[in-house]
């Protein structure tokens, strides 16, 4: 017999029938796990009876490493948390440090942070939508989404010299001011991006096959979303209107007019389409921010090179593309933090996978995983 015998378990279902259960490992190297996630999947035929995520393959001990580094040296580490949205981790960390050290950030820096983070949201959502489409086999939608992301990454490259790990937001400001004509290119992009978003909406979200694949899949109730600590599009897809940009309006977000897209079914489709609509809102925010941004310093003057915040603790959070990203820092007054904790939204969202995947088919498992949009750099830290 060719097949592994131990991967099949004879179990008895509630009616007393013998069910032959197939246990397969989805991952850790599998095209649709969006990284290195392993899901031990128990299958009855094609139906998932139990899906158990096994994480930690990308665990680098960043929280431990952070205890051994100065405050500035941690910024590049945060790049490696959510490598699809490095700006968020940068910003959340810097906000906590600024709160701890009492640094006032110049207004231009705040605007630049908002602009890059909204761009990052688009880039991250494009990645998520593209790979969610790729999970359902729509390779072309994947390319279209990545094409949009590429435009943003090019802008980032011009801004800070890196395409993925930006190390751009620093305690007290940002590392570079914008190059010449950068805002013009950005506005040109948002204009074109809207058209592309409409096109992608019709190509993928309007498609009967895509709807068939995503509607009613992995339904998450609003109560579960709150209780399980889901945030970001995962919570909003279930109709939970929870967006820190509105509810704990930080930085200069109160000055912008934007909406929070919410779903009503809580299925994979609503989660994914929430992301698409958030890209529209991000375009709006970017355009308003570019209109409002003024001249001025992009870095707080008088911040020391070697930060030594007062002893104490600070928590700050921002709305990343995946949800509320919190950073908790305990300082003992030295140049290195005593404890840094990253509350990663992807980690909390991924915990929902066993709940959502049960009873769906193996094909749906990858769709559900894709709709949770985990980034394993952030899950495993």
């Amino acid at each position: 017999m060719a097949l592994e015998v131990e991967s099949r378990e004879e179990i008895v279902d509630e009616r007393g029938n013998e069910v032959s259960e197939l246990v397969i490992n989805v991952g850790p190297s599998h095209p649709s796990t969006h990284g290195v996630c392993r899901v031990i999947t128990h299958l009855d035929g094609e139906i998932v009876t139990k899906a158990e995520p096994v994480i930690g393959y990308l665990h680098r001990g960043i929280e431990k490493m952070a205890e051994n580094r100065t405050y500035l040296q941690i910024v590049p580490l945060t790049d490696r948390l959510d490598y699809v949205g490095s700006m968020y981790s940068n910003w959340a960390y810097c906000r906590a440090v600024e709160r701890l050290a009492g640094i006032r950030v110049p207004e231009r820096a705040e605007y630049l942070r908002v602009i890059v983070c909204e761009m990052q949201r688009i880039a991250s959502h494009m990645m998520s939508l593209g790979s969610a489409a790729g999970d359902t086999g729509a390779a072309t939608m994947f390319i279209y989404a990545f094409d949009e992301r590429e435009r943003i990454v090019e802008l980032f490259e011009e801004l800070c010299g890196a395409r993925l790990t930006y190390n751009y937001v620093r305690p007290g400001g940002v590392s570079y001011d914008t190059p010449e004509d950068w805002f013009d290119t950005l506005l040109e992009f948002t204009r074109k991006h809207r058209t592309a978003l409409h096109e992608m909406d019709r190509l993928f979200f309007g498609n009967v096959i895509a709807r068939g694949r995503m509607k009613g899949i992995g339904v998450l109730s609003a109560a579960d979303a709150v209780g399980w600590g889901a945030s970001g599009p995962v919570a909003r897809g279930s109709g939970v209107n929870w967006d820190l940009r509105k509810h704990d309006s930080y930085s200069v977000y109160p000055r912008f007019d934007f909406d929070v897209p919410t779903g009503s079914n809580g299925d994979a489709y609503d989660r994914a389409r929430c992301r698409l609509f958030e890209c529209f809102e991000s375009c709006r925010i970017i355009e308003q921010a570019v209109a409002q941004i003024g001249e001025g310093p992009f870095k707080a003057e008088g911040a020391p090179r070697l930060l030594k915040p007062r002893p104490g603790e600070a928590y700050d959070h921002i709305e990343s593309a995946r949800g509320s990203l919190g950073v908790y820092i305990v300082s003992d007054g030295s140049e290195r933090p005593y404890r840094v904790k990253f509350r990663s939204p992807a980690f909390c969202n991924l915990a929902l996978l066993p709940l959502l995947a049960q009873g769906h088919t193996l094909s749906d498992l990858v769709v559900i995983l894709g709709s949770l949009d985990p980034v394993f750099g952030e899950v495993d830290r």
Partner: protein
Amino acid sequence: MNIQELRDHLCGQHPDLCPLFSIEFGDGVLQVDCETLYEAAENLQSLGFDRLGMLTAVDFGDHFEMVYRLTSRSMSVGMFLKCAVPRETPRTRSLVPLWPAALWQEREVYDMFGIEFDGHPDLRRILLPPDWVGFPLRKDYRDDRLIRRPDYI
């Protein structure tokens, strides 16, 4: 709602919790005994704190401090709930029955600090391999594989 209003609200509803509440660095902190942690959390949940945002621990040498970040959507306010866990017997009660969000986060704290949670349905290591020895985020953790930081800053 700001922190002061939250304090008044909390004191009005639960006078026994009031003396434990303090405001540190602009955040409300409710420091409770670990024996009464579950009840306090339950009270806060009924008060409107419906989200358990973050759950972690800090090793302060002589004791661990459990830190729970609770957020209320209806009140738009967040606060900390803390309790000190003795280092010799690192046990406390699990909050999974109140918030399933604690399911994985408590596993992570167990993984990194070795704090055990009574009532947790599935307390295993989560990020590290099951055969890992030691709890890395404890300050006394030693590992030969750790690269030593150079002496200078």
